[in-house]
């Protein structure tokens, strides 16, 4: 059983479209992180959300942490081809310092 479920698993859209990807769990997380990974590279941290209900914006990317700290979403406005990559959510639970990753959403933005 995957602790963090990400959906959709694959997403292919045209440049300029908006999209939202989701990260859900039945467990409470003390914080959630979103990473982007490009082919042949390691994941790169985009954002960390800590407080339930928190919303963070990074240019065209908007991240939200659920009120109950069990889920998160990533919304991209006016997607660009450079947004193509694997988006991973990852979380810390309580005092456990192990970072648990979801399987990721593979996003392809077509020109």
């Amino acid at each position, binding site marked *: 059983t995957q602790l963090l479920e990400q959906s959709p698993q694959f997403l292919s859209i045209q440049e300029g479209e908006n999209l939202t990807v989701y990260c859900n769990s039945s467990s409470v997380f003390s914080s959630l992180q979103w990473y982007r990974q490009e082919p042949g590279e390691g994941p790169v941290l985009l954002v960390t959300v800590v407080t339930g209900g928190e919303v963070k914006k990074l240019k065209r990317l908007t991240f939200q942490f659920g009120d109950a700290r069990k889920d998160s979403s990533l919304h991209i406005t006016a997607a660009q081809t450079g947004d193509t990559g694997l988006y991973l959510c990852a979380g810390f639970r309580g005092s456990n310092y192990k*970072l648990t*990753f979801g399987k990721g959403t593979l996003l392809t933005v077509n020109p």
Partner: protein
Amino acid sequence: EAGVVQSPRYKIIEKKQPVAFWCNPISGHNTLYWYLQNLGQGPELLIRYENEEAVDDSQLPKDRFSAERLKGVDSTLKIQPAELGDSAVYLCASSSGLAGGDTEQFFGPGTRLTVL
């Protein structure tokens, strides 16, 4: 400043052979992590070091995997003998301070292992 360095980037071996991966973390980062990433999956932690001490190796298959970080800087992960199911990308990451809820981990590019 240089990021996390890993070598080799690619390795192809036959099953039952040994293999080793090397990682040099970002200078000054005392926490080092080794992750395994299978195709279509997120990274899974194998081992975490705080300086030279392995503080979490609960996910490391100790019958065939070993790791060391002798001087608290660079680290080596070894598999002996390799099995077909070990084919994956092995990622190294590092962070400053102790692991925690807002810690940023910096990942290397990984070593892609193929076992034939």
